[in-house]
């Protein structure tokens, strides 16, 4: 693991976990030479060193604005050559390969234990951070690595990590959603206050909290309220299935804001009136999901993200749906990869069960629908990167993820029969996780 670290020692020591080390280790030394990201990483290193980082405390660090820009920094839009193309660009392929290797070598082997324990090992979270997942949405001026829109890259990484395990991927990617939201819609002050933490080594556990515990939840019609009181906002409500809720230092809470409508508020974990309850669910278990309760939680005016523009909030809902669609593609592919050797090897009535059309066609369906889900997700994400409308495409990707993803999870278990129902095989976990991914709102972003 460390041969390349030695040769890169000078950089690595300054890197503050920017991801260079991890990328090098994960993707092999030839990759780095191939990638254009290098310049971006080096500049990020330089800027990171220049601005420094807040000191972290266990009880929730103090977030304080430093080096505020005149106006908020944003990732520029991606430019297209106007040709149809399914191939990710070099930079995206680099992240994708790194994510795949990480998922295969570290995440998958840890998945069952993490699911049982309802906890993702700290080592894996740290390695994911080294991969750069928390800072994909951070504009380059503020130490981010991406030169332009990061939605497609984030979706590709999400798919790759979730191929290892969806719950671990959720835990690993959740803080990045907060950084992405602030990078997309935050004011210059909010960016300066919070984003530096996400480009360092000690990335805070953080959560984008939209989902509420009620049937037929609609993220545009929230039960959680934010009421004006003098210079403050006072928040009340409950938010569901937050990754590592108990460890979170920072929340972006969606609330129906008086006179504004649904909007996001930056709420630090030290805020009075917050409490966290454990909320175990059928899936996403390595993410140690919990419920955030807000009872008269008071935040300053400046906590309202990006002036509470409705378009920003709607875009947040849409981007989250793309993220969950990408996380569904991972386990859907994992089901396909797993059942193929199984049905080929499994013998019944004197031959391989995959010689039977009833079995073989089920495998075809998994392949076809996984491919469709993936393309729909890529389309939505790439539209977001180019600054085109993507609400329709996000809704469609989500629909496919929820419906086909669930079916794929079910067929994965079915094809293994009774063996699929017991925990010796991972298909029962994918069954639970694929159902879960289709239900989630918010929490992740591309």
């Amino acid at each position, binding site marked *: 693991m460390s041969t390349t670290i030695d040769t890169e020692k000078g950089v690595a020591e300054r890197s503050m976990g920017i991801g260079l080390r991890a990328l090098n280790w994960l993707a092999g030394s030839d990759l780095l030479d191939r990638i254009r990201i290098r310049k971006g990483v080096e500049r990020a290193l330089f800027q990171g060193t220049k601005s420094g980082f807040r000191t972290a405390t266990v009880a929730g660090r103090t977030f304080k604005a430093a080096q505020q820009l005149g106006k908020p920094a944003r990732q520029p839009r*991606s430019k*297209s*050559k*106007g*040709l*149809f*193309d*399914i*191939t*990710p*660009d070099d930079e*995206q392929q680099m992240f994708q390969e790194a994510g795949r290797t990480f998922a295969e070598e570290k995440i998958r082997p840890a998945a069952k234990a993490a699911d049982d324990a309802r906890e993702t090992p700290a080592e894996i979270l740290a390695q994911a951070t080294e991969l750069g997942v928390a800072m994909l949405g951070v504009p380059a001026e503020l130490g981010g690595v991406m030169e332009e829109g990061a939605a*497609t890259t984030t979706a590709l990484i999400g798919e790759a990590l979730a191929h290892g395990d969806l719950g671990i991927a959720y835990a690993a990617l959740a803080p990045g959603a907060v950084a992405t939201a602030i990078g997309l819609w935050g004011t210059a002050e909010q960016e300066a206050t919070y984003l530096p933490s996400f480009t360092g080594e000690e990335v805070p556990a953080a959560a984008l909290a939209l989902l509420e515990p009620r049937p*037929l*939840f*609609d*993220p*545009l019609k929230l039960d959680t309220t934010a009421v004006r009181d003098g210079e403050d906002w006072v928040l009340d409500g409950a938010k569901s299935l937050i990754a590592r809720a108990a460890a979170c230092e920072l929340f972006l809470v969606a609330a129906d804001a008086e006179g504004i409508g649904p909007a996001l508020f930056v709420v630090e974990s030290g805020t009075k009136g917050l409490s966290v309850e454990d909320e175990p669910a059928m899936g996403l278990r390595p993410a140690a999901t919990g419920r955030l309760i807000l009872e008269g939680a008071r935040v300053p005016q400046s906590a309202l993200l990006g002036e509470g523009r409705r378009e920003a909030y*709607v875009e947040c*809902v*849409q981007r989250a749906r793309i993220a969950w669609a990408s996380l569904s593609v991972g386990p859907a592919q994992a089901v*396909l990869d797993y059942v*193929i050797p199984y*049905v*080929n090897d499994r013998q019944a009535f004197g031959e*391989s069960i*995959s*010689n039977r*059309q009833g079995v*073989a*066609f089920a*495998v*075809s*369906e998994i*392949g*076809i*629908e996984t*491919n*469709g*889900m993936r*393309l*729909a997700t*890529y*389309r939505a*994400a*790439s*539209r977001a990167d*180019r600054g085109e409308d993507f*609400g*329709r*495409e*996000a*809704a*469609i990707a989500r*629909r*496919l993820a929820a*419906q086909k993803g669930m079916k794929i999870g079910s067929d994965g278990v079915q094809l293994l029969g009774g063996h699929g129902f017991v925990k010796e095989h991972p298909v029962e976990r994918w069954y639970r996780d694929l159902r879960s991914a289709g239900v989630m*709102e918010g929490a992740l972003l591309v």
Partner: protein
Amino acid sequence: MINLEIPKKYKPLVNQANQVATEVFRPISRKYDEAEHAYPKELDMLASLIDGMNEGSSDLGGAGAAGVRRSSNGSDPAENRNGTNLSTVLGIIECCWGDVGLLLSMPRQGLGNSAIASVATDEQLERYGGKWAAMAITEPEAGSDSAAIRTTAELDGDEYVLNGEKIFVTSGDRADLIVVWATLDRSKGRAAIKSFIVERDNPGLKLDRLEHKLGIRASDTANFTLQDCRVPVDALLGDPEVKEKGFAGVMETFDNTRPLVAAMAVGVTRAALEETRRQLSSAGIEIDYDAPALAQPAAAARFLEMEADYEASWLLTLQAAWMADNSKPNSLQASMAKAKAGRTCVDVTLGCVELCGAVGLGEAELLEKWSRDAKILDIFEGTQQIQLLIVARQLLGKSSTELR
């Protein structure tokens, strides 16, 4: 750089095709559904126009008559290419949004033309250029199992003598040429299967009847008997040698034509969805993409579900065509596209009829017609089940003897 949109350079083509569909196909769509077997003479002028555009190397092909040759033009293989396969698929989608039966009836745009354009020698191309060619594969006892065909071709001097029966020949009555699949030696199986170009006025080619059909009624479907039908030796398309690879080559042309049929299905599906959206809107139901599907009226949720399947079909179809343009093996994706688009077209068009009730069933609108046209798209060029077999064999790494 991932970009799954219609390429900028093909937007004029798509626009042109859409105008053809709107101005030429739609106004006569019902007329030729009712007047089955009547020749849609309105298409003659359009066909000339398309010939003219093809001369000017426009890509507005009909059912892929431009052929699907995988030309290597010496450009960098790593470079992303958008070419004939993609443009043809895009054109077909628009035309079939207008009327799939009429597209299938377009003079000089038959599947036979596609086969000729794909495998003919330069000399054959010259001889048969500008003619309308239909394709005759299916027989009463051989449908999906095209290796089981019984029509024979016997060499007699410098002629082949064809004998057998062919059914379901699209445009068989109207075409100038019929590309007939026949075997040189039934004992040698698929390796001996070759295709022969038969002139429509050959006295050995007898039209038995035209079928009356559920849908695509604008398109004539002919049954023939070949009785001592003599063709010159150079009417054989491709390599006359009997070898296993030959049949694989014939089947490979299907890798390129399956996305075209998938494109037809995508076009019909979109037509039904667009009309249904209008009908639902008039009933006070608007589709909201931001609200969760299940927090909306059931009709809207159903629509979203159908639109999601449509989108997957569209993307799979474009993927298969794009891979062909970029010389990537696409047999798997071509079958995925055909399977998904074919069944989606049937499910969606029938679903749209249900959502629109009596308006959907009635002949005042085209919804019921589209749902009848749809069914053939899940059957010809390989049924749903054949596509699933091909996909399964590829995914599982199985041969056709293991997975039957």
